[in-house]
């Protein structure tokens, strides 16, 4: 129970870093939940994060799984509110101001400037995840195969992930 205020502060902070998508916050997510607060181990985080990519809806709903692991149902709810609330308020306010900012020359500059930075942060997040998840040649082969198939076809990625689970299982038996 005493962990709930800390959980909320951590996830409210993380939400403010999600420029370009949840992936941008991944390096800080790992640092805070694994190294600083020891809420879970790095493999546990990677497992939950990866399963979260196959869940329906926005791709960061895995934060509720961390909240659940740390402080049960209340923890899950607290984390979700903390992770969604701050950015929702910012978006609501700036969304209403947006039209009025039309004549302001810096609006375009901010938008164009933040774009490459958020792309870089998202790629940085992918690198962090890859460092933890690609522990052997089977994993590397799966990642390359999924990467290529997602870029070249319109197949539902969830099917690919299920396939990868089977490959992981077979590889462990051999």
């Amino acid at each position, binding site marked *: 129970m005493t962990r709930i205020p800390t959980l909320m502060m951590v996830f409210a902070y993380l939400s403010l*870093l*999600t420029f370009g998508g949840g992936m941008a916050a991944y*390096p*800080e997510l790992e*640092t805070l939940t694994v190294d600083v607060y020891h809420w879970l181990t790095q493999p546990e985080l990677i*497992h*939950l*994060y*990866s399963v*979260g*990519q*196959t*869940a*329906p*809806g*926005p*791709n960061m*709903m895995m934060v*509720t*799984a961390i*909240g659940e*692991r740390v402080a049960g149902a209340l923890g899950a709810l607290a984390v*979700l509110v903390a992770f*969604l609330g701050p*950015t*929702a308020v*910012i*978006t609501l306010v700036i*969304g209403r101001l*947006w039209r009025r900012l039309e004549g302001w*020359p810096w609006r375009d*500059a901010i*938008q164009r*400037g*933040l*774009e*490459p930075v*958020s*792309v*870089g*942060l998202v*790629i*940085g997040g*992918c*690198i962090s*995840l890859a460092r933890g998840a690609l522990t052997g040649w*089977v*994993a*590397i082969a*799966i*990642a390359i195969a*999924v990467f290529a198939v*997602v*870029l070249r076809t319109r197949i539902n*990625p969830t099917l690919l*992930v299920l396939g*990868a689970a089977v490959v*992981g*299982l077979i590889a*462990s038996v051999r």
Partner: protein
Amino acid sequence: MTEPSGVTPRPSPVSVGEIFRVFLLLGATSFGGGVVAYLRNSLVGRHRWLDDTSFVELLSISQTLPGLNATNMAVLVGDRLRGTGGAIAAICGICLPGALVMFVVGLLYGQHGGRPVVSAMLHGVAAAAVGLVSAVSLQIGRRSLGRLADVGFVALSILGVHALHLPVPAVLVGVGALAIWWHRPRIP
């Protein structure tokens, strides 16, 4: 009657309950990086709540601000349709299914995550997730990767996080300020 621009005139205004239902369905049926395509099909195509120009405008706001693209879009569209109540209904609807699924995953993981079979499968899932998020990131980043100066800012951000081990906010502020200054308004 003057409609706020961007909202296609409809015989009756969209109710908060209707917004919640549509976004709940989106939250239950859309997946990962493709969520924008689902939003467009539903909001512009099926329900005609937005025209394509407004959709693109709201999407560009979503991508500039912190927050997930899908939840930012939900807030912006909900607000345009029915004010703050609409925004709350939309974000709750789109998040609820995935949040419930991941809550159950958290519970199950606590009970069975240590089993070798589960671990082996999740090892495969994690590898697939790396491929998936990399592909989606590349698709999103393609535009920035086409301009030389922006490639520089992308590279600087990656170096900041991984070579210099700077915290993400430091990179965001430092490289962000540099990139905004580079794109600053020029006096003609």
